[in-house]
């Protein structure tokens, strides 16, 4: 059973938005996470950048599950991104809670 995570990605322009979305979805899939990605283009929605206290672009915030996690920069290094966003943590927690080795399809 895959975990669901919700992300907001703050980007600068449609092209970066597409790239970041694609990358996030890819990284999530690798960790068996179902990702919902909301793209915020700071040049089009500066008030959203203000609300999110965003300085660096791109910034990706994991909104759910809590606690929030935040990374900044191009999502090049898969391992680091997965770790920083906690893409693998939910699986581990779920397995522990279940108390039983969970067979994943």
């Amino acid at each position, binding site marked *: 059973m895959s975990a669901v995570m919700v992300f907001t990605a703050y980007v600068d322009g449609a092209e970066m938005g597409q790239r970041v979305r694609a990358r996030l979805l890819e990284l999530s899939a690798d960790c068996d996470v179902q990702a919902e990605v909301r793209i915020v283009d*700071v040049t089009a929605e500066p008030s959203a*950048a*203000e609300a999110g206290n*965003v300085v660096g672009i791109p910034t990706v915030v994991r909104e759910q599950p809590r606690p929030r*996690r*935040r990374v*900044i920069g191009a999502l090049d290094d898969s391992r680091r991104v997965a770790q920083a966003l906690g893409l693998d943590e939910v699986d581990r927690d779920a397995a522990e809670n279940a108390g039983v080795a969970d067979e994943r399809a």
Partner: protein
Amino acid sequence: MSEPESNTSRARGADAAALLGSHVVGVVDVPGVPKLATGIPGFDHVTMGGLPRGRTTLVIGPAGSAKTVFAAQFLAEGIHRGQAGVFVTFEEPAADLRANLATLGWDIAGWEESDVWRFIDASPVPGTEQVEVGDYNFAGLVARIGHAVDQTAAERVVIDSVGAVFGQFADATVVRSQLHRLAAELRRMGLTVIITAESAAPSSGALSRHGIEEFVADNVVILRNSLEDEKRRRTIEVLKLRGAMHRKGEYPFTVLPGQGVVVIPLSGMALDQGSSDTRITSGNATLDEMTSGGFFRDSIVLASGATGTGKTLMVTEFMAAGCELDERCLFFAFEESRDQIFRNARGWGRDFEDYERNGRLRLVATYPEVASLEDHLVEIKNEIDEFRPQRIAIDSLSALERIGTVKGFREFIIGLTSFVKAQQVAALFTATTGALLGGVSITEGHISTLTDAIVLLRYVEMYGEVRRGLTVLKMRGSNHDRDIREFRVDGAGMHIGEPFRTVAGILSGQVFNVADPDPLFPGL
């Protein structure tokens, strides 16, 4: 005996409420990058008009140098001039800034409500962490600033501080290049910007800790807060303004509650004050005779002598005479309390209480140690601006000598006399000589060339008695008595009598008797 110079009165265009140093020497219209008057008192004098408009200025200083106050004041003064501002804070949260800056008298919350002040709060939120996983730019920051500027039509922006930005982002190379881009973007938007930065350690050879001046600095201002002789001295220096002229060197400044930074410009004063022919009474009829009619309406007089020689009495008579003529008289006392001064005055037949009650006399008695020299200077200026006296007295300048460095005191005297001169009031300052018999005071050394008249008061040891003498040493623009005259003091004040004829060496303190007194001058 020299002939009196003729004094011509010239029209003065300057506003009597002008700030210290508002007379500019030389060129009025300085070619180069147009400047935006900041409104920070004294600073626009140093920059000769303000900061380069539409450009970024780096303000560098150590911790505690008032960088943030200075930057916030740049915005506050802008708002007073109808220019909205945006304050980008990387260091302190907006809530803290609002509260701290309120003590300087700025209603920032009110301005935010009127949307003429916006905070962009990029300060670190405790407990949240951001991990850098790759390359990034500051487009988020640029978008937020641009948005705030659009909505408020802001013309002034502050970024506080560079060090805090480096503190939040691990990749220093990225930060430097992005700040460089940010400055370019702000310039494209036509904004006049101040960015604050920390000073580098003196040994490093760089100006700012992160070397930011190499990337962002067409214009650099340095704030210093140095310890000299156990005293703090705050100074501001405009190091460079690209494409524009400015005054060089350090200028002292102070930070006053309710006002903020006040820069004290000195000696950039033009000597263009008109001078008056009108005479006023010194408060003593004989002294008036000795000076051929009294002091000039706009002169600065120095009375110098050892403790107890009658300086305070001279000041008392000077003030009382003004009050009797319905003039406003402002008395700054740094050595005695109000009660002591009033009691002394009563003992000499002057009712200071009455003068104070009917608003003629204002006495400001302050212990010198309560503030720095710069603070005292600004307070004196404020009192003068508010009370608008015709006569001013300070008893004594020497009491202020001990709270500053030698350099600081000299600058204080220059600033004080420049300001007083611009007011065209009659001023009497006292100075205390260290030696009891003769000698010269340090204050005298600084001030004697700046005053129009000097009266010396001396003890004279004669025939086993200590008597007192007074002489008018100099009086610009007038004949004056050359004699050293003896004076007595009683319940009616000072009585100046005959010249000393049988002794010499009074001024040096080495008094000796001369042979037979000249029969033409019976004296004594």
